[in-house]
């Protein structure tokens, strides 16, 4: 579903991603972990071209999204993204946040978009908040709305960029629960996270990044018990 070939990304003279090649299969839940500054977020943001790769290719369903004539807008509709700081639209109600893109981008009717939105809000447990503005929500609620907003576009892939890092500890769980239930629906997911317990429980595979390199790719059971690389061992010792 996603194929990454010799991806490199530089900011000015600083190369933050060195030659990453990998693949994410349909239905995979991939947890991307590693120390701060290892390039996890940059890697994730390359997948929907929020960062434009300096070199290399990324294929989504066989289509080279790094090709100059690729239709980025259309590709992004297939890829939902959830941010650390939610980025809900503050001047729209929760419901409008969910219906905006489906109506304006996919040209859904208002009724259809609102029906879908209410379904999704019910799914994340926030149907009663449809008419309030984001500023009235807690962090955990905001993030659940943000997830629902992405899902409203019916994406095939969901990217999560540290979705619980900005949350108070007691709100982490409600967001992880929503993600967990999303994973059971067969959604292809790539999650940058520091929640090791979650990664171990929910992910099918772990990508361990360090210093801009994809150092290790393994199943969670193996990665968390017997990491192959020394860097991963050191990292896990500090984390667990």
């Amino acid at each position, binding site marked *: 579903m996603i194929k990454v070939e010799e991806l490199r990304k530089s900011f000015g003279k600083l190369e933050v991603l060195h030659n990453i090649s990998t693949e994410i299969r349909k239905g995979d839940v991939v947890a991307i972990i590693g120390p701060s500054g290892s390039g996890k977020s940059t890697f994730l943001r390359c997948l929907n071209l929020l960062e434009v790769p300096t070199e290399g290719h990324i294929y989504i369903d066989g289509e080279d999204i790094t090709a100059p004539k690729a239709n980025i807008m259309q590709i992004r509709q297939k890829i939902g993204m959830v941010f650390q700081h939610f980025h809900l639209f503050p*001047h729209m109600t929760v419901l409008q946040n969910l219906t905006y893109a489906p109506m304006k981008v996919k040209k859904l009717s208002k009724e259809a978009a609102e029906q879908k939105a209410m379904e999704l809000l019910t799914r994340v447990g926030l149907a009663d908040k449809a008419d309030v503005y984001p500023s009235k929500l807690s962090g955990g609620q905001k993030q659940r709305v943000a997830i629902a907003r992405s899902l409203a576009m019916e994406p095939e892939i969901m990217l999560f960029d540290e979705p619980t890092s900005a949350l108070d500890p007691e709100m982490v769980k409600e967001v992880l629960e929503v993600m967990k239930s999303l994973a059971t629906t067969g959604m292809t997911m790539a999650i940058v996270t520091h929640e090791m317990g979650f990664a171990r429980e929910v992910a099918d595979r772990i990508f361990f990044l360090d210093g801009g390199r994809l150092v290790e790719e393994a199943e969670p059971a193996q990665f968390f018990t017997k990491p192959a690389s020394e860097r991963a061992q050191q990292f896990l010792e500090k984390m667990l």
Partner: protein
Amino acid sequence: MGLFDFAQIVPYIPFILEGVKVTLLFTLLSTVFGFIWGSILALIKISDFKTLKGLAVFYTSIFRGTPLILQLTFIYFATPQLTGYNITQLQAAVLTFTLNSGAYISETIRAGILAVDKGQREAAMSLGVPYKRMMLDIILPQALKNILPALVNESIALLKESALVSTIGVADIMQNANIVKGTTYRYFEPYLIAGGLYYIMVMILTWLARVLERRLRRSD
């Protein structure tokens, strides 16, 4: 005839008041057009079109770097000479103030757009929202909310500076006060009345701005 003699001016008060309509119409037109033109300039300035961007920056520096009264005189008198089109006083006045306030407003709007959290843009992009829609629906509404006080100040400044159009003969408050002065040979009373009118209008505008701002804050 005493030091102040309002009795003599009273018959002329309706005439001065007629100027209010012109001043308000003029301010409204200049604010609306200036805002539209300023938005366009601001969007050009944050775009990637190098040449257009350079032109917009140059344009702004010209209109901010020369006196307004010169721009007004220039447009009113030079337009017929250059194009043969006999521009009316009100047209010249609205055009000048639009071009001038557009230059100032564009800087305010540009700063307002850049102050909107970068994450808003990324969220819109990740949903596949095209650039134009994103600007109109997501970025500009938030930018406008932030810069609303500055925009109101700009329209208040326009209202007051509009008195300059009397120099090319537009029948605004100032010009009508001038005429009353010329007819009655009284200076104090007509200008006092004109000043009072400007002051009241500015106060009303300030009050409206406060109401508007409060309504916009609902979502905070």
